[in-house]
């Protein structure tokens, strides 16, 4: 079987999912498909099962926070077809009020901890995940630290006031 071109992949998923594929961009050596989050699982399932593509390796997944966007939260998934050596990136955006994605665990077991990490750091919840708890941070933490509004410095430190070198006191103001 021949290596599928990105155009063939785009054509196939456009045909199957139509309007739910929101955009296709070339970012360096990757093609990024932005999709509606409702088709996430069915798209991955389709790419996994289809003999022409065989995207059966989930390279990585992570959450992203873009505070200035209308939909400020995103999940990024990178799929790899080891047979044809094609890699693609899938992105789905959502809002703070609807911070849910469907879990990919039925397709990729590896998604388990990747999703827990996204929950831990961004508060993104995954429907159907068997154990939606924090993974790297302590369990009684009451915020999601990778969101942009949380400062990197300890909130109890007021002595570090050197804006010249990138430590912004403004971060503290946002919280209070």
């Amino acid at each position: 079987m021949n290596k599928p071109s990105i155009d063939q992949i785009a054509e196939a998923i456009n045909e199957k999912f139509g309007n739910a594929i929101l955009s296709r961009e070339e970012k360096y050596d990757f093609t990024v498909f932005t999709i509606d989050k409702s088709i996430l699982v069915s798209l991955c399932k389709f790419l996994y099962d289809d003999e022409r593509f065989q995207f059966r390796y989930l390279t990585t997944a992570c959450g992203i926070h873009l505070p200035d966007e209308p939909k400020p939260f995103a999940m990024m998934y990178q799929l790899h077809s080891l047979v044809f050596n094609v890699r693609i990136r899938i992105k789905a955006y959502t809002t703070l009020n609807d911070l849910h994605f469907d879990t990919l665990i039925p397709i990729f077991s590896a998604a388990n901890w990747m999703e827990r990490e996204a929950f831990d750091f961004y508060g993104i919840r995954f429907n159907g995940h068997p154990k939606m708890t924090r993974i790297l941070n302590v369990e009684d933490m009451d915020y999601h630290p990778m969101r942009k509004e949380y400062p990197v410095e300890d909130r109890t430190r007021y002595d570090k006031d050197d804006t010249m070198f990138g430590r912004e006191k403004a971060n503290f103001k946002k919280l209070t």
Partner: protein
Amino acid sequence: MQLKPTIPDDHKQYTTLNLGPTHPATHGIFQNVLTMDGEIIVDSEPTIGYIHRAFEKLAEHKPFYQITPLTDRMNYCSSPINNMGWHMTVEKLIKAELPKRVEYMRVIIMELARISDHLVCNSVIGVDTGAMTGFLYVFQWREDIYEIYEEICGARLTTNIGRIGGFERDFNETAWRKIKKLVNDLPAGLKEFEKLLVRNRIFMDRTIGCGPISAERALNYSFSGPNLRAAGVDYDVRAMNPYSSYEEFEFEIPIGKNGDTYDRFMVREEEMYQSLSIIRQAMEKIEKLQDKTSFHADIPSFYLPPKEDVYNNMEALIYHFKIVMGETDVPKGEVYHCVEGGNGELGFYLMSDGGRQPFRLHFRRPCYIYYQAYREMIKGAFLSDAILTMSSMNVIAGELDA
């Protein structure tokens, strides 16, 4: 699929055993709460994050060149690979072209790092089976490799080796001499080490069939590196998506069959010989090059000028100031770059908004991803096999917890 915590309702006496977080046999800070039926593991619940240091958050607050020291605290057994993976990610973002000589020099260092990583992992498998001798033998070779790092960058464990665009200085004569000596002497040392373990009946009985995983499950769990290859899948980033001129090198990708501890051990053993062969080829290629001096790319807005120029040359002073204060323009965009790390595909997903710091930096840490399978791999095994399985998977706490 996540395994449900199942304690069978059969009126047996089950014991809960806390393995870790600090236990000499776990080689790092991992906790596993095991449910035991006698000596057999019925179920386990891993807890991680004991040395989480928020690298992804910290990276969003540091200029690009200050992120290198964060990366070498991830897989500290092969930190040069992490450092160079990060440099290459930034170079990809800024579209920097590197001289061939720099790429070959990087290959040498990365392969040395791979050897030192595999030496530690394989000899620790020996320790966990009760064979301390091999471990003590091979640490001499690791020491030699660390001396080479020391010669090149001054550090040993957390190396911070190289810069965005190349190296901070050229390899000196002593470094070349030490590399040559290592490449000559190590095969005999490896043979000696193998003589202790490879056909050792006790070692074979302990490791063959211990903690196996099938190729399908390994792929489903996104295994990479020697662990995936031991299961029989020949996925190696160096061959699949070559970087740093790996496409010019001749090397074989050893694979195993059963995905058990013995196969993982043997795959790593063979990879060390392949790494040595790559280093030899790289040195030959450097010999043949016309270019005998360049050790960094010509990207003045990212590569710090020599200090004497900063004092005497206006342009160098400006660049120095711009780099240190983070005033250099970086293109907007998102880039993913992966390298074959000591234990698998080490990836960097970098989103840049044009500012001095990354907007988002995500590390694809191979052992964070494959350690998930540990629960499945040790289910039904003996406790002593679980210890061996963990050490043969090369789970590095620093990388696991980022």
